[in-house]
């Protein structure tokens, strides 16, 4: 049974690739069926040479004696470690760039001095100039990444709600330096070290808190300081926005540093002249995935001139299959191995711009270095122009286009509401808006490429529940017009009235997946304003199409933060009744949050609404 995308443009390109005999992600998904039930349940262990061991009715223990509970919890923690590591890599790149920028060695300028001063004050950094503050803050962050696990993270102490700190301290969950936490977690998950499933799960909570306050909140804070805090602005999306007369560069991945440098350089007369000499009308930098979202929400300042957002993770092969993309600059994660096969069918050049990424078959790597970014940007654009010259006539661009409003966050919402969250709290108290749900994270084939995510968003807004998007779910909503203020018509009467009054859509884009940190900041601000714990708020999180390891870290962070966290795909834990019970029930007694697994999005929306109504009752509103 072939699953389809929720987007017409993706489906059109899927048909095109099939007509060409090209196998893409939907075909590969089908070819992988049936998938092994032991892996899906998390009870397959491949750690030692005795393995692989599977826990089955015939063999309830692995050769070493490990139970399903141990194997499932250990596998789950290992997944999260990957996510935590990738987020720290992102933060490290941003911190190094901020420092180099302060030293005048990059093409960037500090984008938000106000936030720099505010954060430095909170962290206790003193300095006389922007330069001094930015260098000192970068050093503090780099040190926080590297310090020991016995040295509590400053950012947790500073930014977490007090009630959370109390809950976490009681459980021994205040983490130390992220790299050290990763080391400890990896050591614990080696064969024959930690086999207590409860300790392993507590470690996932601890590592998630480290990831939440460094990889998420730390990264967005430094990115805002460096590139500017997002502002509410208009955005265009979908494949119909591709201009075949331009040299097209796809900014693809998560770390928007090289992409910003390329976007800025692409607008210089020198580069435009070069493009025109090659026969093009100009240069477009198009957005893909989270790098695209980062540019989109800063198109008012550091990312001026940004082209449209093309799509999310699952769309990457189909964007290239238009035949009109000259260069894909791939940063950090989420570039799939299959992309190379599609790129080779066309003229498209794939280039890694992060030393961490080496794709099989790709031999061009321009590893981002803050001090060289200006030159590297020109090099990439020149490569794109050279590739443009080889572009053939086999181009099909779907007609689909969408527009919307992006750039939401605590600061831009405060700006729109006149400096206070009270108007938002008032409409929640009055019940016009029952609550808010962060619909975030990845997209996948299992859930029909955004089909589950979009269905959940529609069900929630019908119930007068405001949706906040981040990551791949932002693109999903943009392409289907859910971030266009006119989509308020799809919302229930209360939410619709609020949206129409403020000219905002019922699905607010908070940006990329790392911007889940931005949602954490908003929830913290709401909790502070009401003087309650986040777990008491009428809010929830959902990753209806979660896919990879960063999302595991995000999801566990939401649980640690005290939120009901809905997941669409069943996480690989069901082989352990104990782990399943802890994640879906018992953890609520510890953190106030828990996992809700529900594959039917109508039922999921009902369950989330019931949760929100209980929380409203608890607050007496």
């Amino acid at each position, binding site marked *: *049974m072939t699953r389809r995308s929720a987007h017409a443009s993706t489906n059109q390109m899927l048909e095109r690739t099939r007509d060409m005999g090209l196998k893409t992600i939907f075909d590969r998904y089908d070819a992988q*069926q*049936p*998938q*092994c*039930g*032991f892996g*899906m*349940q998390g009870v397959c262990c491949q750690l030692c040479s005795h393995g692989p061991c*599977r826990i*089955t*009715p*015939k*063999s309830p223990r692995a050769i070493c004696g490990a139970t399903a509970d141990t194997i499932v919890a250990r596998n789950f923690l290992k997944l999260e470690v990957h996510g935590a590591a990738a987020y720290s890599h992102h933060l490290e790149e941003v911190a190094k760039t901020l420092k180099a920028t302060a030293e005048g060695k990059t093409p960037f300028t500090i984008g938000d001095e106000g936030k720099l001063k505010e954060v430095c004050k909170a962290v206790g950094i003193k300095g006389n100039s922007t330069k001094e503050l930015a260098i000192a803050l970068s050093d503090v962050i780099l040190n926080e990444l590297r310090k020991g696990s016995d040295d509590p993270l400053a950012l947790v102490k500073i930014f977490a709600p007090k009630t959370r700190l109390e809950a976490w301290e009681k459980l021994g969950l205040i983490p130390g330096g992220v790299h050290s936490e990763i080391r400890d977690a990896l050591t614990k998950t080696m064969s024959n070290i930690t086999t207590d499933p409860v300790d392993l799960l507590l470690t996932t909570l601890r590592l998630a808190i480290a990831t939440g306050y460094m990889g998420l909140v730390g990264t967005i804070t430094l990115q805002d300081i460096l590139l500017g805090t997002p502002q509410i602005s208009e955005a265009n999306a979908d494949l119909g926005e591709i201009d075949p007369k331009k040299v097209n560069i796809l900014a693809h991945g998560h770390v928007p540093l090289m992409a910003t440098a390329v976007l800025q350089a692409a607008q210089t007369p020198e580069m435009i002249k070069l493009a025109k000499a090659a026969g093009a009308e100009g240069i477009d930098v198009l957005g893909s995935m989270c790098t695209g979202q980062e540019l989109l929400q800063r198109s008012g300042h550091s990312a001026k001139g940004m082209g449209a957002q093309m799509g999310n993770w699952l769309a990457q092969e189909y964007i290239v299959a238009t035949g009109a993309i000259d260069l894909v600059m791939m940063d950090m994660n989420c570039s799939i191995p299959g992309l190379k096969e599609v790129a080779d069918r066309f003229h498209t050049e794939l280039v890694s711009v992060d030393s961490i990424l080496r794709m099989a078959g790709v031999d061009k790597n321009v590893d981002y270095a803050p001090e060289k970014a200006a030159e590297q940007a020109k090099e990439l654009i020149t490569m794109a122009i050279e590739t443009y010259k080889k572009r053939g006539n086999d181009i099909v661009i779907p007609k689909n286009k969408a527009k919307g409003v992006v750039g939401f966050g605590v600061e831009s919402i405060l700006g729109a509401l006149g400096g206070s969250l009270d108007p938002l709290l008032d409409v929640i108290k009055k019940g016009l808006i029952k609550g808010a749900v962060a619909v975030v994270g990845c997209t996948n084939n299992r859930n029909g490429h955004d089909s589950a995510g979009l269905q959940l968003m529609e069900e929630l807004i019908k119930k007068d529940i405001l949706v906040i998007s981040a990551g791949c779910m932002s693109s999903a909503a943009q392409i289907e017009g859910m971030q266009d203020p006119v989509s308020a018509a799809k919302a229930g009467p209360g939410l619709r009235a609020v949206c129409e009054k403020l000219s905002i859509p019922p699905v607010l884009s908070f940006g990329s997946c790392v911007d889940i940190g931005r949602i954490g900041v908003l929830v913290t601000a709401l909790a502070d304003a009401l003087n309650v714990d986040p777990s008491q708020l009428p809010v929830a999180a959902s990753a209806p199409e979660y896919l990879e390891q960063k999302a595991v870290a995000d999801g566990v962070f939401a649980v640690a933060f005290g939120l009901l966290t809905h997941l669409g795909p069943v996480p690989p834990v069901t082989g352990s009744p104990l782990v399943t019970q802890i994640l879906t029930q018992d953890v609520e007694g510890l953190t106030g949050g828990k996992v809700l697994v529900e594959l039917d999005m109508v039922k999921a929306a009902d369950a989330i609404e019931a949760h929100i109504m209980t929380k409203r009752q608890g607050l007496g509103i």
Partner: protein
Amino acid sequence: MRKEVMIDASKCNGCLSCTVACSAAHIPSGDPLEALLTGEPSRIAVYSVHGKAVPITCRHCDEPACVNACMAGAMQKNAESGRVKNENTGHDCIGCWMCVMACPYGVINQREKEGRSVAVKCDGCVGRSVPACVESCPNGALTYGPVNEYAETKQRQAAASQVA
């Protein structure tokens, strides 16, 4: 009483252990890694039907359509064991694929062997007390026993469900 491979698809979780065990059982070393590396085909398959894994293999029919269709005489049903096979039967497969077309279950395939294309199918694991696929199944989806015993177990389950 002759034994047969019986399938309870509801217990299959798609782990494909049976396919690896089948390939391994059909090479001299019996080593699963070598079987995977050399591409030894599996004679049992598992398909995803609306997301549910379903194993399918030769039923060793009493009046096999494949045997009737085989012009070379390679495909034969052994009267004693009841197994239907086309290897080491005294006649060589000539690769006409009549058996492939005739089989109502589609469980006969093509493979390359010693430079020729020949038909390949389940041989019932002649020489083993339990077929490799059944032995390897961790879920009890594949069982090996007299048909009447299987039927009786199923009857008892059905009977129990009447009063449950």
